């Protein structure tokens, strides 16, 4: 080991250690940087990160219309069988048969919040919501139907 490298090592080590201490020292002197959420206490003002994924929901507008065409792309994309889509055939005014959504079954207890269904959806019908308080007393309640009763496909979406 040559002497120049030895001295360089010592000073380099001191420099990098001081750099690390500056980071923790900064946080120590700036307690307002604390990011802890005291959850049950601040339930009303809870602020979650934008990327937090809690459950899959289907968007409905004010006319109770959704954008799901029943294409089953999300069902195919789902890695663990969380989504089951039951389709039906509507008769269009021209008398043709057209595939449409009957029931969007979502098994929350199987979902890993991987976001693949949302990315697979060609029409942007489903999104990830931030609700995370999912505890229920009966497992059956975790099997949800995402399309609201009486909702139909928004006009113009193929």
């Amino acid at each position: 080991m040559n002497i120049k490298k030895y001295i360089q090592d010592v000073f380099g080590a001191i420099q990098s250690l001081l750099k690390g201490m500056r980071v923790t020292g900064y946080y120590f002197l700036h307690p307002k940087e604390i990011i802890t959420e005291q959850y049950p206490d601040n339930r009303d003002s809870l602020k979650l990160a934008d990327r937090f994924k809690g459950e899959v929901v289907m968007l409905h507008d004010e006319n109770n219309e959704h954008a799901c065409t029943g294409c089953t792309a999300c069902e195919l994309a789902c890695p663990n069988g969380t989504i089951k889509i039951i389709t039906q055939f509507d008769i269009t005014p021209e008398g043709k048969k057209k595939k449409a959504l009957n029931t969007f079954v979502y098994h929350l207890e199987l979902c890993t919040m991987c976001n693949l269904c949302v990315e697979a959806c060609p029409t942007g019908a489903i999104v990830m919501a931030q609700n995370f308080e999912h505890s229920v007393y009966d497992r059956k309640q975790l099997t949800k139907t995402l399309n609201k009763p009486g909702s139909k496909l928004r006009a113009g979406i193929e």
Partner: protein
Amino acid sequence: MFSLESIKNTVQNWLQLHVGASMALVIESILLGILVIILFAVLGLVLVFMERKVSAVMQIRIGPNRVGPRGWLQTSADTLKLMLKEGLTPDGADKFLFNLAPFIIMIAAMLIMIPIAFAKNFQIWDINIGVLYISSVASVSVIAILMAGWSSNNKFSLLGAMRSGAQIISYELSAGISVITMVILTQSLSVNEIIASQENGWWIFKGHIPAIIAFIIFMIAVTAETNRAPFDLAEAESELTAGFHTEYSGMKFALFFLAEYINIFIVCAVASILFFGGWMPFHIGNWQTFNHIMDYIPSSIWFFGKTFLLIGLIMWFRWTFPRLRIDQLLNLEWKYLLPISLANMLLMTVIAILKWYL
């Protein structure tokens, strides 16, 4: 003005007047024992709480804040829990050594309290080899760690204890040499004389660069000696579950845990005595008025203030640096700290001979 010295004198005079000189000595010894135990308990509670809060803020968390106002009773609740827990002794353990080890580590910590000066003229016993005594008794604690690791009859404990043995023996060298470096300046091993020699300024300012280098090396070495991160290979919870105290539970575990924090307090007290003048207020040369104003702050506050600042520094180390590997640990000691501290000692000797210090 508040001072521990006057309280001590009052008690001493009262005892000598009422029970006679020899009986007074016995009662004083018992009182001192109780005081040391109380100090240990309070230090344990305060330091554990401080560590948890400091680590929390450094990691952008809040830390304990539920038990008592702002979480202040958290450590008391933990202590109560530990006292109510069962103190298990494993079947395959060497039962005598297993139960003895926690007491040895506490006795070693208690013995070091003897020469430490907590305030002006407030010291259990002013030994004329105080610093030597501290560094020799401090190395007794490695026996307790080895004892705990061996008698547990558990491979994690044994590995942790062996690592700890290698580590403490190595780092004691550079800690000792840093102490010697300062003793060269003070030309005395007595704690009281070392403090008295810093009346016109602390050694860290008077001793130029060698004193600063000695201080840095001392802080690194004592962090390793107290088995704290980044040198906590003896515990290494990610590798050895808990190292030498894996098999301990209840109050026996609490004694090891307490001893760690007591040792931190002790080494920081020694560092404050050697480099920052112990209870000596902040004096600058012969600025008489300034020195007088500083004297109005009680000496016990100076001592505990300095010690707690140094404890904060050691906690800062712990929550910043990653743990070293065992070969890196020994490299650091034998290839870097030891040669540097030897060269530093030589430099300090030259300075002391030429009287370049103030």
